[in-house]
């Protein structure tokens, strides 16, 4: 059984990272808090299996699994069922840089655009841009291959740019 002191020192310090990922996945505070609480308790249970690798990556993996498990309707997204090949190079045009620049400086617009993206895009962007995870860490957290992480991130950014510059979807 893990001691609470070890758990505090290694895992609880990553609570902000855990909450940020959960919040971008769940898109509301209450569900995100429940996901993190559930994930933290699971992490504590499984802490004996944690062998001193990257505690943040380990916790984020559990947070992600917990989110997809609790939100059963999204559970299919947990696996690599999303067909990357179908989306390959679907979006080759460059968004108008000037429109992008003006919209991108408005945090509220960026937030709204991000929240309109599918969860598989939200999670890689949250991990890369807010947690500054490496591709390898993202691959470990999401269970994706590293090449898939790279291509998914590329498409996530293209979609985000298009959301920012394109027509607004009705609220």
């Amino acid at each position, binding site marked *: 059984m893990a001691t609470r002191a070890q758990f505090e020192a290694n895992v609880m310090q990553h609570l902000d990272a855990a909450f940020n990922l959960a919040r971008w996945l769940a898109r509301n505070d209450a569900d995100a808090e429940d996901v993190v609480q559930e994930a933290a*308790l699971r992490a504590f249970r499984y802490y004996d*299996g944690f*062998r001193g690798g990257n505690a943040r990556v380990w916790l984020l993996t559990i947070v992600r*699994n917990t989110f997809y498990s609790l939100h059963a309707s999204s559970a299919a997204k947990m696996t690599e069922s999303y067909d990357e090949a179908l989306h390959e190079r679907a979006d080759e045009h460059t968004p108008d840089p000037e429109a992008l620049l003006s919209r991108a400086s408005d945090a509220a617009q960026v937030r709204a655009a*991000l929240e309109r993206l599918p969860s598989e895009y939200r999670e890689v962007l949250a991990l890369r841009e807010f947690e500054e995870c490496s*591709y390898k860490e993202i691959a470990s957290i999401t269970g994706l291959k590293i090449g898939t992480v*790279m291509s998914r991130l590329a498409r996530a*950014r293209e979609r985000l740019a298009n959301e920012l510059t394109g027509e607004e979807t009705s609220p």
Partner: protein
Amino acid sequence: MNCLEARALLHAYLDDELDAARSAEIAQHLSACAECMVRYRALEKLQQSLRVSQLRHAAPAALAARIRAHLPEETRVRIQRRSWRWPALSAALAASLLIAVAIAGWQAVQLRAQGADALVTEAVSDHVRSLLASHLIDVRSSDQHTVKPWFDGRLDFSPQVKDLGAQGFELIGGRLDVLGDERVAALVYKRHLHMINLFQWPANGASSEEPQEQTRNGYHAIGWREGGMQFLAVSDTADLNAFVQDFRAAAPLRSEPR
């Protein structure tokens, strides 16, 4: 490098996931190609706007307290669940959640339980990936006295770095890598046109193990354990056995344990 190649790697360049040589090629292309440069600037701006946007959510202060209040004090305590928000979470589903988390959450347990098989497979795909593009070398040097100190600041163990130039295995550098969620040192040696990745990390337990060879998709992998370290060499060269023998026989560069 043409535009097509550059664009395929633009995101990896933005994210600093390319090795020095590739980065230099991209930088060179960008300085010569206005169209790709516009594209890159837009990506860069998008990334910056995300990072300065304060859109990262911080955990509410009350959440940590709530979690601490729920942490069990003894071994057999049920996980508390706020079932009103997710009603009808059946016992079967709960059990499958635990299994899913146990499996996906911590592969190292699995790896140790199942033996080195999965690890070898991962090491081979690491080796292949390191050759493909992104990330063969973090520190480029044939000098063990450069490579070793580079690692010492970045890992909580001190990897063995040996000069095997006389034996025909040229040290070309090293990088940090991850195997089974453990941070490992990867040394890169070269024999003619063949690359060799030598992974090493602290072994659990003191026992030594003689080299054992496995093959995966035409790649050779030889693992062994000695001096408290686990080693795993991966390459497509048939000389990997000789490499392992020479590495083990060569005098290590000593440094103080950290």
